Structures are given as C-alpha cells and as structure tokens.
C-alpha cells in the first residue's frame, strides 16, 4: 500500500519537473535562458482553472499552455528584440506571476490565498493496479522523447544548435537567429504552461499563491543536471519526483512525523536538489552563446 502510493506519487511529482525542464532544455539549446519558470507555472495554473471551470479540463490544459506560451513570447521579445537581460526578465516574471495569482484569487473567487478545484473539472485518471494514474505521466514522457527527436534529428534542431553555439555563423548561413530563439522561448513557455495546468487541474487540485513551491527552480536544476538532454530530464524528474512524492506520503504518516518533524521531510526535495546539482555539475556543457543577446555587427 505504502509502496504503490510512493510509486504513483513519484510519477505524479515527476510530471511538472520533466515537462518544464524539457521545454527549457530546448530553449537553452538556442541560447535563451528563462529563469521565470516558477512564475509561468503559477500563472498558468491559475489560468487553467479559470479555463477548466468555463469549458472542462481539456480547455483548461489548452488555456494553461497558451498562457505559458504568451509569457514565453513576452520574455522572448524583451530579451531577443530589445536585447534585455534574460535573468532580470526571468526574475520579473516570477515576481509578476506571484502577484497576478494572489490578486487573481481574490478577484476570481473572492478568496485570499486558496481555491479548491471542483472534481468535475479535473483531468480524469486511468485506473492501474497500483492506483489511479494521471494520463499526463505519459504525456510528459512523450514530450521528452519528442523534444529529444526534435533537437537531434531534425533540420530545426540543427539550426537551434547553430544559433546557440555561434549565432553570427548561423546568421551568415541564412538562419534567422531571432526567429529560432523566439521559437525556443514560446516552446519553453508552452510546456511550463502545460505543467502549471497539470498542477492545478490535475495533481494538486488547488490554486494557492505558492502552488508551484519552487518546482520551477527544481526544473531549472534538472536542466543543469540533464546537460541539455531531454531524456535525462525524465531521469531527473523521477529523482526529484521521488523525494517530492516521498515528502507528500511521509508527512501524512503519524509514525514517521513523530520521529522526524514534517517540516524536515518537506525540506527533502530542496536538499536533494542541492545534493544532486552539487554532485553532477562540472561535466555539463552549455551552448557558447547562452544568455547573451545577439546583435548583428
């Protein structure tokens, strides 16, 4: 019983990390970094519920994705066309996201800080021998595989690599650096938006002002861990998902919280993230032009 719920929880906790990290991996391949993932998760989680309550769970997923894509687009325009600082813009998105959701909760439902998502607008689950499983688990894995294919085996993937490593050369070869990066920005935003929608209308079934709880940053750590390989984003998502899920399962068990206070169990995913990132980094290599705006000479 405990074992199966651990597995189900790990798989469910994997989804937001893997999906968000996968999108960001593609974006970082083109040299565009968006550390505003946390803000995108929050805003799209909120928007998805508004969408789902109007038109059902699938509309909710779509609204979440579009919201994320829109924020990604804004980040892209600021950093690519206006040569803005990618880190500042990302931090701004995080602050704005926290504000929008806190404000939106009061405005939409008249409640400060918390909204329970009604059962009928949540994404239906699949019954498995271990328990009910969200179909988004398979979507997450499929997205990582698809992105892996896109990056490594398509013409567009080659262009992304060129733009990330040497934008001037790519430009000279006739590749539009701006458009490729903008695609990356929107792709990362859309996937984070999907992950945000999953948080609210599927896995956690609530909207709160701290719903994402640092998962956007854990996803960024996963991007680093993966060395920009989407397949490793699945592995990273499972590692973090396991401890995230473990915290959820264990903090409800009285026998364990009597020995270890639940606050320390809730710390686990963050401590593990630190440990994993500390142990792994060094071998990861990032595109040369990462984080820098491109200007034509």
């Amino acid at each position, binding site marked *: 019983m405990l074992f199966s719920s651990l597995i189900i929880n790990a798989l469910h906790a994997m989804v937001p990390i893997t999906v968000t990290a996968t999108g960001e991996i593609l974006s970082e391949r083109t040299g565009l970094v968006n550390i505003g993932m946390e803000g995108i998760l929050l805003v799209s989680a909120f928007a998805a519920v508004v969408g789902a309550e109007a038109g059902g769970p699938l509309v909710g997923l779509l609204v979440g994705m579009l919201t994320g894509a829109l924020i990604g687009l804004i980040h892209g325009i600021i950093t690519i066309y206006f040569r803005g*600082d990618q880190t500042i813009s990302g*931090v701004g998105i995080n602050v704005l996201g926290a*504000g929008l959701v806190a404000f939106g909760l009061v405005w939409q439902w008249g409640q400060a800080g918390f909204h329970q998502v009604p059962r009928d607008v949540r994404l239906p689950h699949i019954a498995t021998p271990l328990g009910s499983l969200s179909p988004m688990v398979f979507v997450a894995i499929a997205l990582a595989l698809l992105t892996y294919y896109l990056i490594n085996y398509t013409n567009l993937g080659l262009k992304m690599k060129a733009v990330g490593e040497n934008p001037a050369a790519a430009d000279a070869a006739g590749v539009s650096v701006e458009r490729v990066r903008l695609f990356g920005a929107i792709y990362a935003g859309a996937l984070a938006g999907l992950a945000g929608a999953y948080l609210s209308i599927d896995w956690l079934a609530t909207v709160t002002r701290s719903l994402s709880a640092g998962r956007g940053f854990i996803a960024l750590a996963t991007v680093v861990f993966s060395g920009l390989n989407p397949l490793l984003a699945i592995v990273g998502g499972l590692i973090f998902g396991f401890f995230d899920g473990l915290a959820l399962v264990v903090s409800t068990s009285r026998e364990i919280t009597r020995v270890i206070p639940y606050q*320390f169990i809730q*710390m686990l995913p963050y*401590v593990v993230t630190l440990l994993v990132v*500390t142990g792994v980094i060094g071998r990861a290599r990032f595109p040369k032009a990462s984080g820098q705006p491109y200007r034509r000479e």
Partner: protein
Amino acid sequence: MSLSPGKSTPTAGWRSRMRAAATSLSQVVLAAGIGLIIGAIMMNATGYDWKEAYQALWLGSFGDIWGIADTLADATPLILTGLGFALSFRAGYFNIGAQGQMIIGALVAVAVGSSLVAPKPLGMIVVILTAAAAGALWSLPASFLRVTRGVHEVITTIMFNWIATYLARYLVFNVMNDPRSAERTVRVLPEVRMGALVAGADATWALFVSVFVALFFYWLLWHSPWGFEMRVAGLNREALRYAGANPTWAVHLTFLLSGVAAGIAGATQIIGRPPTFALYGDLSNLGELGFDGIAVALIGRNHPIGIVFAAIFFGALSTGARMMQIMAGVPLDMIRIVHGVVIIAMAAPETWSILRRYIGSRVPARANAAGASRTER
C-alpha cells in the same frame, strides 16, 4: 549583463557622468511609470477604480506624519535586502537568496534578543551583529558551490530559501514558541527593542541602521580596495586574475556581505518593528522582503544611495497599498504586480532607443550620436 555597472569610467568627465546619470534616471522613472500604468490598466480591467486607488495609495504613504513614518518603516528592511542583491549584482552574481538569509537572521535575532541580558545599546548591537553573521553564514554555501562546483547561484540560493523557510517554521512552532501565543515565537526582551521615531508609528531607529549600512556599502564599493576588486570581478573576471588579485576571494566576500545585509534586515524586522517584536510562524512579518529587494536594487540602479530612495518608493507602495485596500477595496497583491512589471521594464534598458530607431530615422537617437562623436574626437 546589460545593466553594466559603472557606465562612466573613472576618467570620464563630469559632463558625460551627468549625462549617464540623467539617462539612468529617466530609465528608472520610465520603468516605475510603466509599472504604475499597467497597475492602473489591471485595476480598470478587473473593475476597480484606479484613480481612487492611487489617491488612497498617496494618502496612505505620504498623507500625514504617520503615513510617512510607516513608509520609512517599510523602507528600512528593503534598503538592506536591496543592498544585498546589488552588491552581488555588481560583482556579476545573481544572489536571490536574501529571503533565506533574512529568515535566518530573524531567527538568530529572536534567539539572542530573547535571552541576552545586556544594557540598552549593547544588547541591540549584539543582536544585529549575530544576525548579520548568521545571514553571512547562510549565504556562503552558495558561493562555495559556485566557485568549486560551478552551480548557478540562482538555483542554490532558491533551494536555501526553501530550506530556511521550513527550518523557521519548525523552530517557531517547536523550539522558540511562546506558550501564551501559539502562532509566534517568544518576544525579544524590552532592552533590545528599538525606540520609535514618531510616537505611535512604526518607524524606529532601525532606519538609521539601514542608512548606515548603505553608506558603508558605498564606501566599500568606491573607496576600498575590496570594493574595487568586486566591481572589476563583475566587469571582467579575467582582468582581475591578471591584475594579481584572487577572484575566488572576491566572490566569497561578495556573498558574505550580501548575507550580512540580509541578515540585518531580519534582525531589524524583529527588534526594530513594533508592535510584534517576535517572529510569526507563517513568517508574515518577513513577507517577501528578500525578493522585493531585487526590484529595489534594480530601480536604485544597484547604487547604495539610489537604493535608499528606491526603497522609500517601494516602501510607500506597500504602506499605501494597505490604505488602498481599505479605501478602494483593491487587494494588497496589486502592488506585487506593479513590482513585477517594474523589474521586467528594467530588464531592457535599450528598448527606448531601439523603438526610436524603428519609429523613424527622422528622429535620430541623440544619445547615440553624442556618444559616437565623442569617441571620434
């Protein structure tokens, strides 16, 4: 980084320095203006009266002596968290761990301030110094991980923020809890509480602690060899190595001092902010001050003196927001939206000149022309 520190080189004349200051001031005013305008649009779209709201905002923050005092009280910790962010930013690092460092500083302030028996000014000084040291210690792992393992500080500092948050929640409820009041820690002793500047208002002598730290950071950055190393590290790390300095030391010193500022912010929220003089379990009297410091630093152009004024601006926003909620019914969090927009607007300092170029070549960008003619001479 596009907000390159020190746009004017030390050898540049006062004329170009004035021009740089004017450009940067206009960018700041523009960003703040964009934030307030988008706030007004948001309020309009969601059915609030933005004129009434901004009127209340002004009345609440600068309307009377108590409003001004509360504005200054809200500015006090913002100066410190802003300074912490700015110092790291100047050295080329994105240390967004002020939130966690502040929480640790506040915990130590409660622990020391509730148990230490000392004559009046000495006790306060000890509380502030120990909180500063605690903030510094909480900041150092991030710089060690950056230097030795190459882990980006954005990731590590955020993780340390969450760890500090859960640690604080545990300690408030289980170790430092007040038996008479379950939701907060014990209060610090009356001897270490800082006196009010205006009777009945929230501003205390803590304001002068903040301003003192700002002046110290100013001296440090521009009048000490360490500050020079930090600034050079932010501009060109290789140059620092060639000059014979140790870049690793500059990184650690930067993170350490950022932690000191944030740790003091935690202390002043405990001993210098009536009426609580304790830490709440939901950490509500620390709020998001660590993150707010980012906007403060950016609007203050990462300059200690600019940060003092920027903190007063944001302090006025948060003080006024309370009045805005009471009089116009606008949720407090409206102000966080303004914060976010201001930060995003500050991300792209070139926007204006690029837009001008698109709009038409008949309006030549004067700043660019002036810059070009000077280099020719």
